[in-house]
């Protein structure tokens, strides 16, 4: 409730400022950027002059008529400006809100570069180049940096897409760490090498403020078309004066059409609806992106997003959950299944990684193994003599020692060397099982008890729920999806089939990614991709639409043309939709605007020539009351329709993934046919209202 009131107050303040802004936007220097509306402004000034002349008693028509026309022309301008001001205000407010409320990664900033030094907790965005931070197991690394001290296993899946943890240590060429990656074990002291990129928000604010906004290529092309229409109508209206002079001479009746009527006709004919709302459409497209926590570097990029033909999606994080789950226990032939399950359970009780938990739950749920309490409890109050061995980057395995029994689980080669060190041998059967699992797209985890291998746990990537449906939607939109993974082709194929992508690229290297993008582009297609690692930077720079994760490295963010503050790779799909909406709204309102002209002709032409050719009254199919009212009704409708369409301009025409042919048909019916019919009704209603007011 309170929030609603706050919201209302916020909106009220916004509208107040927008009203003021719409007056400021009347400045001809700003107006001239929009040729259609500039013509309206010149017309408004002209009719105002004619009005003053009429008030002085030398008018070409009744001063009340000229006055009403000129007032409504000013309203037309103000309404159009208002739409732009509201869109700008909302965008600005959204970006400011984002800046103030954004939850930052916490960083432990050290006073001295050693482990024992005291530290203070600061937001990652406050870090500067050269700051020293401590990162412990479970922490996110707050920014790009170099390791000064320590060795740790780091989950870089958010950056590289590779789900297996990697070892990072001081010295040598493995001392670089990336912001947004997570330390899994041990600790590091990191020297920050680049400040956080909050400056992007300022860039975004610039994009939503009309004055600084650059027109996108598509907007320029549309403006050319609108300018062409404006010129045509200028010529139509200007030549109507000589035509009218000739006609009055020919018929010997009436007087030539007045400048006021010609100006009214001109403003009604030129595409003011789209011309007036065009800035608002562009700005609100940006604003919709900010609402989704995406910062675009240019309007061009947002438009290009709507054209994307191929999406390159990282497997990890986008299509699969970042972590793998246990799905099966495969015992050696000499071992009972329950024995392996129980042993695995014991080995994982204290393992708090998602993989570990999944092993426990698989053992409990599927194989009904009881025993062991809640893991958290176990860890702190474990039975006497039970000692848990956590996973470390050095051993690359974990397990438990209890009552003279020692259980270990880990990668095949790590367990193998462990077993050998115990003086035991590894049965050949293990290799077969391990290979089978790997071939099916899984990750094998070997379990050994007292130096003897019992069997293998099958870990598998879990495809996100709903992702398959998303890909079906994308296919309907005409977009091809390609999965990018560091896995081997066999694993990749299995996951690709499960997720329903169109294609996959396995064992990717930065070079192969770049090559793929170039190949696709050479076919004339537009490519979108997300990325966050430094090695993604070349590919991001090459892609037409490149979205960097906010958690990504500095080079990645530099190379991208959009940044996702939520670091959610599926966002790409929404970005594509926003881009499409932007174009669709422009197309729909252009169609609507031009279609409107049909009815305006039927209102104004018979009215303008009623005295010269009474027979033309047959074209007054709306039976509008008087010539003055007919012209005024058309002008008023033309102004009001802008107000009515502001919500549509701000919200955007809804996009549905139904294929281009159906979209075209539906939107032509709504905005084309609707654009022909609606103004007939509107003008008639306004005319009825006007004649009612006259009688009162």
């Amino acid at each position: 409730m309170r929030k609603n009131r706050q919201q209302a107050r916020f909106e009220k303040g916004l509208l107040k400022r927008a009203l003021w802004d719409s007056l400021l936007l009347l400045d001809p220097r700003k107006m001239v950027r929009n040729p259609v509306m500039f013509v309206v402004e010149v017309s408004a000034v002209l009719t105002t002059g004619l009005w003053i002349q009429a008030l002085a008693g030398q008018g070409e028509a009744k001063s009340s008529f000229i006055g009403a026309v000129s007032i409504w022309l000013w309203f037309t301008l103000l309404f159009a400006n208002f739409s732009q001001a509201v869109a700008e205000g909302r965008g600005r407010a959204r970006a400011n809100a984002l800046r103030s409320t954004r939850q930052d990664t916490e960083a432990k900033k050290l006073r001295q570069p050693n482990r024992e030094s005291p530290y203070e907790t600061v937001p990652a965005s406050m870090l500067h180049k050269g700051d020293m931070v401590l990162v412990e197991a479970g922490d996110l690394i707050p920014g790009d940096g170099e390791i000064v001290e320590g060795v740790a296993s780091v989950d870089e899946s958010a950056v590289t897409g590779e789900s297996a943890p990697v070892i990072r240590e001081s010295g040598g060429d493995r001392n670089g760490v990336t912001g947004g990656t997570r330390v899994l074990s041990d600790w590091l002291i990191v020297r920050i090498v680049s400040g956080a990129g909050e400056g992007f928000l300022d860039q975004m604010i610039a994009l939503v403020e009309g004055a600084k906004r650059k027109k996108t290529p598509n907007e320029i092309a549309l403006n050319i078309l609108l300018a062409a229409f404006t010129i045509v109508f200028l010529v139509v209206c200007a030549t109507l004066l000589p035509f009218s002079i000739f006609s009055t001479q020919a018929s010997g009746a009436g007087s030539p059409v007045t400048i006021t009527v010609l100006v009214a006709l001109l403003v009604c004919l030129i595409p003011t609806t789209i011309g007036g709302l065009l800035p608002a459409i562009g700005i609100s497209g940006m604003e919709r992106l900010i609402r989704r926590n995406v910062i675009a570097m240019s309007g061009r990029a947002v438009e290009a997003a709507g054209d994307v033909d191929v999406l390159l999606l990282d497997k990890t994080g986008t299509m699969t959950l970042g972590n793998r789950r246990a799905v099966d226990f495969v015992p050696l032939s000499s071992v009972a299944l329950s024995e392996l399950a129980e042993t695995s359970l014991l080995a994982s009780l204290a393992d708090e990684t998602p993989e570990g938990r999944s092993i426990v739950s698989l053992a409990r749920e599927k194989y009904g193994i009881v025993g062991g309490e809640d893991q958290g409890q176990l860890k702190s109050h474990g039975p006497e003599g039970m000692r848990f061995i956590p996973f470390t980057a050095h051993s690359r395995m974990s397990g438990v020692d209890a009552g003279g029994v020692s259980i270990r689980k880990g990668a095949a080669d790590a367990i193998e060397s462990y077993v050998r060190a115990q003086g035991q041998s590894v049965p050949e059967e293990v290799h077969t099982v391990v290979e089978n699992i790997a071939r099916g797209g899984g990750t094998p985890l070997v379990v050994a008890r007292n130096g003897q291998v019992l069997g293998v746990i099958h870990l598998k990537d879990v495809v996100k729920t709903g992702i398959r449906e998303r890909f079906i939607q994308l296919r309907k939109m005409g977009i091809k999806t390609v999965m990018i993974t560091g896995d081997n082709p066999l694993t990749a194929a299995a996951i690709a089939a499960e997720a329903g992508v169109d294609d996959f690229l396995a064992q990717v290297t930065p070079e192969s990614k770049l090559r793929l993008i170039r190949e696709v582009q050479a076919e004339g297609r537009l490519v979108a991709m997300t990325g966050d690692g430094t090695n993604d930077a070349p590919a991001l720079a090459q892609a037409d639409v490149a979205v960097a994760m906010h958690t990504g490295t500095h080079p990645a963010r530099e190379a991208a043309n959009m940044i996702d503050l939520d670091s959610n790779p599926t966002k790409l799909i929404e970005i594509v939709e926003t881009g499409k909406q932007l174009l669709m709204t422009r197309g729909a309102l252009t169609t609507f605007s031009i279609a409107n002209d049909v009815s305006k002709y039927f209102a104004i032409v018979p009215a303008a020539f009623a005295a010269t050719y009474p027979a033309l009254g047959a074209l007054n199919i709306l039976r509008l009351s008087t010539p003055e009212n007919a012209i005024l009704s058309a002008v008023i409708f033309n102004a009001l329709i802008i107000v009515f369409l502001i919500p549509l301009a701000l919200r955007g025409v809804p996009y549905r993934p139904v294929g281009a042919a159906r979209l075209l048909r539906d939107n032509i019916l709504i905005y084309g046919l609707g654009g022909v019919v609606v103004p007939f009704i509107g003008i008639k209603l306004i005319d009825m209202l006007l004649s009612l007011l006259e009688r009162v």
Partner: protein
Amino acid sequence: MTTSGWIQITIYMVVLLLLVRPLGSYMARVYEGERSFVTPLLGPLERFLYRLGRSFGLRPDAEMEWGSYAIAVLLFNFLGFVFVFGVERLQQFLPGNPQHLTNVSPDLAFNTAVSFISNTNWQSYAGESTMSYLTQMLALTSQNFLSAATGMAVLAAVIRGFARQSASTLGNFWADVLRSVVYILLPLSVVFAILLVSQGVVQTLSAPHTVQLVQPTVDASGQTVTQQTIAVGPVASQEAIKMLGTNGGGFFNVNSAHPFENPTPLTNFLELLAILLIPAALCYTFGSMVKDTRKGWAILAAMVAMFVILLGVTVWAEQTGNPSMAALGVDTAPGDLQAGGNMEGKEVRFGITNSALWATATTAASSGSVNSMHDSFMPLGGMVPMWLMQLGEVVFGGAGSGLYGMLAFVIIAVFVAGLIVGRTPEYLGKKIEAYEMKMASIMVLVPVVVVLIGAAIAVVIPAGVRAVSNPGAHGFSEILYAFSSAGNNNGSAFAGLGSNNFFYNLALGLAMLFGRYWSAIPALAIAGSLVRKKKAPEGAGTLPAQGPLFVIWLISVVVIVGALSFFPALALGPIVEHLQLR
């Protein structure tokens, strides 16, 4: 409409559409430089002309970028202008002038030269009493070939802009013009001229015949007239290319209403067919050359649909006739003894349907030939031909120029439709961007501006108004028609406007120049920009630029632009005339 009218129109459309594919694919082969069954026959002529061209320093095998192509077009047409102008101004001193006609006045010579190089064939003169045989054959007939070939060559270059990718050149203008003449226009004209001669179209170099009138008559000044001069000349050779090349400039003043130009029902049918034949078939050529015939059929379907609907209006308006005649008790119903309807200004031999069909076809295509006088049509019947020209001559249009004009509309239609489906607009895989929009807008804009401003000047200056022979709204229609015809390079006249004077010769001449080259050059510029672009493959998200929906959309764009640009002007002309009649 009468049953016989239905049957005749149906036969006409069916025969026309049956010829589209064979001729269209043949022309595609010609422009792609492939051999065909006529190569053994005409190849030597082509090679000879190439050799001739090389001796003038032309290189017919060198590929041209759009700029050099455009310069070649302008240069070639400028030379044509100088030649036609020169022959007209000197015809008195040249041979081939058995009637001893004097030199053509400078303003008329300018107007006529512009008219014939721009494929307009607006005629401010009566052919048989103004132009010598030599002028008709050497200057006018040769330009009938060359102006049509220019339009077709420009179209071939524009098509290559869509067909090629990541290239920079559009072909060679000299080769394209030569191929258009040697392989397309010349063989068709020869066959057609022989057919016409067989039907009685005259072809002679002898002087006009003077014959005694069977029944002497009295002229306007009260003198008794006992003799009549029957004009003859090399008609058939000019008639064939006049119809095939969407030229329309008649040998005689009354054009194809003259029995020596169009003597029999068969010649009438064949000439009608020839009006639309090449423009219609070029749609298939387009589809074939861009390797997507559906695109070509879609454009043709849009043209045919607009044509048939507007034809219906004309036939209906003429067959219904004049209500004030009916009010006088005159029987205007069709029957065994009369065509009924409005027969004023029509040949009895052709009747309502064939006159209306011709009027619609000749203005849909930029032919401008007539077999009846449009000035005498009913207001709505006369509005249709006028509006077909005002649409920009894109419903079939001129040989070549009609289709590249239509492609400008296609670009605009695709642009808006592309936005509507949420993609940067593309056509045939080529992205439509600001530059293409600018050029397409110019192509659509310039004829509209030329027509309206030209007419606006004419209705206010005394020289413009004085030429009008009918008072009232009809006089306005006459002026509007003249500028619609010149600005869109059609060339047909509403009649009733005395246009052979300095003002109209100059104003209409300029309108023809603007209309022609402000369309051809931007079209080449679009091609020059598109040819550099890559072709994106079509997908489910791509706008399908074919199929009924796109055809309807394209028609809507053409009609809306045409209607919005000319509704007020038409309201003060034919529309109010029509409403006043009721």
